[in-house]
């Protein structure tokens, strides 16, 4: 009896049913619309995150003015064409009181000529669809000053830690769904406009209100499209899908589906700080490679703003000596003193008479040039020509003291210095003059050598925000890292009195620059590089060597 039942195939049918059920549930799960919707939402947030990252990275790599952000694409002259639209004065678009230049789509390409340099795009890779791009609003503090036509650097804002608390214009604000302040130090806002709501129509060139939304809560109106003042507020509202149509706290219909992220000026300055530190580190290490020692620091203890000039002796902490790292001088066109390492080479051009190459010694070599006979030295050595017992000679010792002896004629002779890649000539005076990347001395004179820092460092006064210390005996310590040769600290903006600290700069006190007792007690030990920023601490430490 039981055999007869088995032959009816109930077990197989049951097995097939279970298999079918499993297959169906697998297929349904793999194509679950909820999962796909969640993935889409995740992608949207990733787009916003990528855009934020790209904007900060673009600003940190802005070769024209470090930290400066691009203008939005404003649909100027041809719709939203992907180009960042600046505002040349003198055109019909010019209005210094208007803020409409500061909101538009996130640009894909470089700046529209002629206002702003750095004609390159953001390089963001989610811009395949030009019709569905992110929106972007930027503070007037961090874009080219559009009230000036000139594209030169004077029309760019000075961006350094001081603008965090002392901006030229109030920062943008971001509010939450209840209108409560989230941040009032916003440098830029990036918005996903979402799909059209209500009567929005997004034809090419449509105004911001056709993309960006707003709502009214408890009678107060909030909108993301009405950027008309320096301290404009943007709102992180809830999507219309999650608001009850009967919620009386909102004016109905509630039509809002913008999603936004923002960049605070603190975030931007934090990122720029690291670029400045990296640039300074490279210069100092290049100097150290050539000289087997770091340069002396510039004076921190001063009451007025001065140039960042090294202090002779053994000054091992202070500012980075961007302006002057070394002095050189010449007594005449035939005798100069400049240390090898600080310079790459010294060349004496002898107007008349020749050297005998067979007599070249050490690190000097002679060559006959159309302009005269030259002797090039990269270290201790000499060029000479011996007649009978009389020897005409140009020689340098290891310290860089170079002099000519027994020249037949001393008219039109000159000494020319070439510098390492990291160095520049700060100033030359009297018989010395700057010739492109070299210094020529044809009479008694002197010159100063500086670090060849990027122009944006001093253009934005960053030389006043970087502390530097070095130790010839590797006595420095950062956190638990010992035996360090050199370090840098980005000092940040002065801490304010409301935080129980009142730093004032310029100052003769290190406590007005650095923030913790460990950093200001004058010993060789500093805080860990991992110490978190707080309201009482904004130092960023970078180990330079080893």
């Amino acid at each position: 009896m039981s055999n007869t039942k088995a032959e009816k195939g109930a077990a197989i049918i049951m097995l097939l049913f279970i298999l079918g059920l499993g297959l169906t549930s697998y297929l349904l799960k793999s194509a679950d619309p909820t999962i796909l919707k969640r993935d889409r939402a995740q992608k949207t947030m990733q787009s916003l995150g990528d855009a934020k990252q790209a904007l900060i990275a673009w600003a940190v790599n802005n070769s024209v003015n470090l930290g400066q952000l691009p203008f939005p694409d404003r649909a100027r002259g041809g719709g939203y064409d992907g180009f960042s639209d600046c505002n040349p004065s003198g055109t019909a678009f010019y209005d210094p009181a208007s803020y409409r230049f500061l909101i538009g789509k996130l640009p894909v390409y470089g700046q529209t000529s002629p206002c702003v340099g750095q004609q390159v795009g953001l390089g963001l890779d989610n811009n395949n669809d030009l019709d569905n791009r992110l929106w972007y609003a930027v503070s007037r503090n961090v874009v080219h000053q559009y009230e000036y036509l000139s594209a030169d650097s004077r029309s760019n804002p000075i961006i350094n830690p001081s603008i965090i608390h002392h901006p030229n214009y109030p920062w943008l604000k971001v509010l939450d769904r209840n209108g409560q302040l989230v941040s009032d130090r916003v440098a830029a806002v990036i918005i996903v406009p979402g799909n059209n709501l209500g009567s929005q129509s997004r034809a090419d060139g449509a105004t911001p209100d056709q993309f960006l939304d707003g709502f009214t809560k408890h009678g107060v109106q909030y909108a993301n499209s009405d950027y008309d003042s320096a301290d404009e507020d943007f709102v992180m509202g809830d999507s219309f899908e999650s608001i009850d149509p009967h919620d009386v706290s909102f004016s109905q219909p509630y039509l809002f589906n913008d999603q936004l992220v923002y960049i605070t000026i603190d975030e931007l300055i934090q990122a720029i700080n690291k670029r400045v530190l990296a640039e300074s580190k490279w210069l100092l290490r290049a100097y150290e490679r050539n000289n087997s020692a770091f340069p002396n620091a510039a004076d921190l203890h001063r009451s007025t703003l001065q140039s960042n000039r090294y202090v002779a002796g053994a000054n091992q902490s202070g500012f980075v000596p961007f302006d002057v790292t070394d002095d050189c001088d010449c007594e005449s066109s035939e005798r100069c003193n400049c240390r090898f390492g600080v310079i790459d080479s010294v060349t004496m051009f002898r107007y008349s008479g020749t050297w005998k190459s067979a007599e070249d010694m050490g690190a000097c070599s002679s060559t006959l040039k159309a302009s005269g006979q030259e002797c090039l030295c990269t270290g201790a050595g000499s060029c000479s020509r011996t007649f009978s017992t009389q020897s005409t000679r140009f020689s340098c010792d290891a310290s860089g003291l170079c002099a000519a002896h027994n020249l037949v004629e001393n008219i039109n002779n000159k000494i020319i210095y070439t510098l390492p890649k990291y160095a520049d000539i700060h100033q030359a005076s009297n018989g010395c003059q700057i010739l492109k990347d070299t210094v020529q001395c044809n009479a008694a004179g002197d010159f100063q050598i500086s670090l060849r820092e990027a122009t944006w460092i001093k253009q934005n006064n960053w030389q006043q925000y970087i502390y530097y210390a070095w130790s010839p005996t590797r006595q420095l310590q950062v956190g638990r890292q010992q035996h360090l040769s050199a370090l840098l600290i980005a000092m940040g903006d002065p801490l304010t009195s409301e935080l129980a600290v009142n730093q004032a700069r310029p100052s003769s006190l290190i406590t007005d620059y650095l923030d913790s007792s460990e950093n200001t007690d004058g010993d060789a030990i500093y805080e860990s590089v991992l110490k978190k920023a707080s309201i009482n601490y904004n130092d960023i430490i970078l180990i330079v060597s080893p």
Partner: protein
Amino acid sequence: MKLIKNHIKQLGFSLVEMAIVLVILGFLLAAVLLPMQAQRHIAAQLTTEAILEDAKRALIGFAQTHGHLPCPATNNGTTIFPDDSGTAHANASGICVAQAGFLPAKTLGLQAVDEQGYGLDAWHNRIRYSITKANNDAFSKPTGLYEVGIAALTPDLKVCATVSAAGCTDRIYLIDNAAAVVFSLGATANQGSGGADENQNLTAPSNTTFISHPITTSASANGEFDHMVTWLSPYVLYNAMIEAGQIH
């Protein structure tokens, strides 16, 4: 006999009944499976997007750690390491053996790989990867980027919205200074047999211009295109390397 006949009749359905049921089942299955297939295709695209995103993050992480980007993996059939493996293939100076090749997933420590260690997309095709040779191969040499410095670096990979007779001009490029390009051949994996835009992406071995746009069919002007292209912005790369102290 009559009893037996009735008994047999009760054991199953007639052919007509079965045919009707099968037709109805066919309609029902088609109604369910066709949209499901489209959704599975979208899911595969999303997965590939995520893989490409992971690849970008891994490239940046590699640069933060090593100070340069890895070279593409190569495949010439010799089976001599590091060729024919998912390993970055550079010569002793750090210059890439091939500018355009495959994502070196083994070097990057990525998971979705085939037996040889090449990175795969959601359709199990190898992911392509190209690196700029600008500044005398500074982007792949161990200390190349640090020595040259951000201000002097000029990566030169371009990504355009379409192949154009006028070239990849500033009116149509999405980026003209990418450090690296990573792309999937898409669902159709037409290697060289797609439209003009797909062919451009596969112009080996020293292609510096790539095409990226939404999917198009063979009926469109530049033919079928379903490559999924992403790229490494120099600014994002430099910024990450600044954080790691690998560039100035």
